């Protein structure tokens, strides 16, 4: 496999598919797109086979071509355990969502498939790029197709949502660009004005690791910029408000990819760049980030409780779940990091599946309002069974993959500071609460008048739809029972990332700080709860299920 540049192949196979679609009549759009995605998936599986987990911390299959020699910018790809997982996740979810959009998407199918494949190119590229400049380019490439997917095939309020999504993301990423350039220049300046390696991730990393690394102020500023970009993508509280809008408006497959992969870009960026290039700054920021993560975990779950719209509920649950990712990363504990990465993968699978499931209902009812559902179990038993499976998976039921990541993160944070673990583990209750409540309102009880009104339209889940969900179920079970598969792959990357931030030796969060952070939130809440008038109406409306 050394002969052919397999990474380039993986990255640009979808593009080839897109071009093909562009030149074929639109009737071929669906099969070609699916074919391309499947092919990419297969190749990515080959990658897994060829990958040597024992050297998981090192970049393998690296390709290097000089691109803009003037600045030493290179077309450099490589894969380590971390990126391998995420790439496979991407390729898997891609073909699944393409398959899932066969029926829902009927207009402008050609453009749709093309943008979807280009989206895949961008996402894979982000994970494989080993050159900060290249990374940034892929990062931005992701933006455009998603913008179109939401904006063209989205719901009623799609334009507001998509513009919000793009602008929000752009603010972050452009600042990140400044940071990338600043870093590169700092590197060049310290290497006698020689640009070679100024954008090369590994060179930068070794420099950052070697005594002192980058100048402290530069680190603070640059990490700040990176943080903003990633925090918006993840999304961390309080940068998350674009997410519910985007999810609600996006077509099903769009939501799947958005939740399944796009959010992971942030977490990946933190581990790959945030920690490795600016260790000291990472240490400095860590407490704040940890507090934000805790807030996100609890806050997201609580807000999810009262969402009237299925997709919004899942969206807020994403905020909560991704909080675990950032928490796990920034406590600088091996278990935490392991957990964070697992959480990324599992959230991708489970939340992706949940969005697919919501899509299934939406296909039949053209509605997502929880209040109008009810009693589905009577009419769609198989669907409800699968739905229940993923609901519990998302609630972190042991034996399914969701649990391992969550629990590892908690273990790590407990080792870091029991208080954080105590706070975070509350989500075990809250998560179960909003998920089961939702499940109860949708699936159980007598069939709601709205649903019975649909009559024969309310058919049980179709084989195609099952086909999209089955692989996810299989993976969720497999990773739940044998998380070792994943852990072996990522261990190397985790150790390296942690050694980059010198094992978090220095960082220790002052419980006081934590208390203040949470206290602030609590204070606001209490303050408003004691004086309720302005939303009593809604409160009663939402709590009466």
């Amino acid at each position: 496999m050394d002969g052919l540049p397999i990474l380039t192949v993986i990255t640009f196979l979808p593009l080839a598919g897109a071009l093909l679609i562009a030149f074929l009549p639109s009737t071929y759009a669906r099969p070609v797109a699916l074919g391309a995605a499947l092919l990419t998936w297969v190749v990515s599986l080959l990658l897994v086979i060829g990958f040597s987990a024992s050297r998981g911390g090192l970049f393998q299959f690296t390709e290097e071509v000089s691109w803009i020699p003037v600045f030493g910018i290179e077309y450099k790809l490589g894969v380590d355990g971390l990126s391998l997982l995420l790439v496979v996740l991407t390729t898997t979810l891609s073909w699944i969502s393409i398959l899932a959009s066969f029926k829902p998407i009927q207009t402008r199918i050609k453009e749709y498939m093309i943008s979807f494949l280009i989206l895949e190119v961008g996402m894979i590229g982000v994970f494989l790029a080993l050159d900060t400049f290249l990374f940034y380019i892929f990062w931005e490439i992701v933006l455009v197709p998603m913008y179109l997917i939401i904006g063209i095939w989205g719901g009623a309020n799609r334009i507001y949502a998509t513009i919000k999504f793009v602008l929000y993301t752009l603010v972050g990423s452009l600042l990140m660009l400044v940071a990338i350039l600043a870093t590169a220049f700092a590197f060049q300046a310290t290497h006698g004005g020689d640009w070679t390696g100024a954008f090369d991730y590994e060179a930068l990393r070794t420099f950052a690791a070697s005594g002192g690394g980058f100048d402290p102020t530069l680190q603070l500023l640059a990490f700040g910029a990176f943080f903003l970009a990633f925090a918006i993508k993840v999304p961390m509280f309080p940068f998350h408000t674009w997410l519910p809008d985007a999810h609600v408006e996006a077509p099903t497959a769009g939501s799947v990819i958005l939740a399944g992969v796009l959010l992971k870009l942030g977490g990946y960026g933190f581990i790959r760049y945030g920690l490795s290039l600016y260790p000291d700054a990472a240490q400095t920021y860590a407490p704040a980030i940890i507090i934000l993560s805790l807030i996100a975990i609890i806050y997201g779950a609580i807000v999810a409780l009262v969402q009237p719209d299925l997709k919004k509920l899942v969206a807020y649950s994403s905020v909560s779940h991704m909080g675990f990712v950032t928490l796990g990363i920034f406590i600088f504990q091996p278990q935490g990091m392991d957990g964070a990465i697992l959480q990324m993968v599992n959230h991708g699978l489970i939340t992706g599946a949940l969005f697919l499931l919501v899509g299934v209902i939406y296909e039949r009812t053209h509605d997502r309002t929880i209040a109008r559902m009810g009693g589905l179990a009577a009419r769609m038993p198989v669907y409800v069974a699968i739905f229940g499976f993923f609901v519990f998976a998302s609630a972190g039921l042991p034996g399914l993959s969701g649990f391992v990541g969550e629990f590892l993160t908690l273990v790590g944070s407990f080792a870091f500071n029991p208080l954080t673990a105590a706070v975070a583990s509350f989500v075990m209750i809250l998560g179960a609460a909003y998920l089961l409540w939702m499940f109860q309102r949708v699936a159980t009880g007598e069939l709601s008048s709205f649903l019975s009104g649909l009559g024969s339209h309310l058919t049980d889940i179709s084989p195609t739809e099952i086909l999209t969900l089955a692989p996810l179920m299989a993976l969720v079970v497999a990773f739940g029972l044998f998380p070792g598969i994943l852990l072996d792959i990522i261990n190397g990357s985790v150790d390296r990332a942690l050694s980059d931030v010198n094992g978090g030796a220095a960082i220790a969060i002052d419980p006081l700080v934590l208390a203040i952070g949470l206290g602030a939130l609590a204070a606001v809440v209490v303050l408003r709860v004691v004086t309720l008038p302005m939303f009593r109406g809604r409160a009663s409306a939402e709590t009466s299920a």
Partner: protein
Amino acid sequence: MTFEDLVTIAPFVAAILVAVGVVVADVIVPGRRTIVLAVAFAGLAIVTLLTITTGATAATAFGGSYRVDDLTTYLDLIFVGTVALTLLFAPDYLEARRLPMAEFAAVLLFALTGAMLLAASADLLVLFIGLELMVLPGYLLAGYHKSDGFSTEGAIKYFLLGSFSSAIFLFGLAFVWGLTGTTRIAEVADQLAAMTATGGLSAGLALGLAFMSTGVAFKIAAVPFHYWTPDAYQGSPTPVTGYLSVGPKVAAFALILRLFVEALGPLKLDWLPVVVVLALLTMTVGNLVALTQTNVKRMLGYSSIAHTGYILVGLAAYAAGRIEGLEGLLFYVAAYSVMNLGVFAVIAALQRRPGVTSNLDTFAGIVRREPALAILMTLFLLSLTGIPPTAGFFAKAYVILAAVQASQAGNEVLGLLAVITVLNAAAAAFYYLRIVVYMFMRDPVSDEPSMAHGRLMWTGLAITALLTIAFGLIPGPLLEIVRAAARAIG
């Protein structure tokens, strides 16, 4: 006047001859646009050839009043390209409105000669005349659709304010002459270096600088001297708008390079703050106002103002001591030229049928009617936004890099400028994407049949699109040229 002199100015002379040739051709066989175009393109080809061949070796002519170096060559190529592309885009539009091709081509080519002279001038008087020769045709082109109220209105606004600023600029120039006692750029620079070495900026020089800065700021449409831009752009025939947004602007930057960077180089640190403030105002105001526009041509007028701001960042970085700033500026103008020409070309194509406005809702759902144009438009808009891998992105990255370097070299305010630049870029995304929204995500207001577009139009669009991508994807070659050009004066 020796033979060497003639060789040196050969491209310039050739350009003049092409212009005259077009007129003559039209006199011989009136109203045959094919012949006109044939002559024009053939001539431009020759000009290009000469530029490349003679540009290879730096030389001066006419007692050092005319100078050829890598910068000259680079700029000349941009000018020639701009004019050639404009000539590709114009015919469909003019034909539909029964406007003659010959005069258009001739005037445009005269403008080209002016721009080339600007780029090559080593003498302030030549510089001034080149400037006039560049702008006067501009006024005429703006009013080229003379039976159209908007066109002429734009033209007269452009003309009156333009000549007003010319007068101001010239007044400043006069002071410089008076103080330095010479018109040769090199000597001016030496004189100024000597003067500033002893006791800084003298009052007269300050006056001169002020007047010249104002004049130049006007020509590049920097806030608060930009007022003419939106009206002129909106009013002019769309292909002309495309040209106006690129040719005169780039030429004005050539003027800056020759006058401020070269002649007034010794006063760098004195005009740096002014440039910083101008850049800041220009990009911010440009973008903010563009947000509220509903007429695409006008919106893009403001956007071009904003881009002036970005380019000025490069200039500021240079003034703060980073040659990269100059490189960034030069790269940016090239990128800016292709993408802006492209974007206006698409609008021109859409307006082929007379009476089609450039209002936003004209663009509603055109992807149904004109998918190719819609996609091209999107490409150019993305480039203007600065999304990789496009020319616009790399250009922006370049000037930002320069600014960052300058700030790390101790001029922190440049760092601030860089940050504000990217924030602006983010805000700008809103109105660029708004057009995309209309094209792809709205339903068409009227169901007109799609229009046929001439082969020339498609060729031009193809070229611009390719360059837009190429500059972003493989900027290497262009970078080399740019650096050489920058070294010629930096």
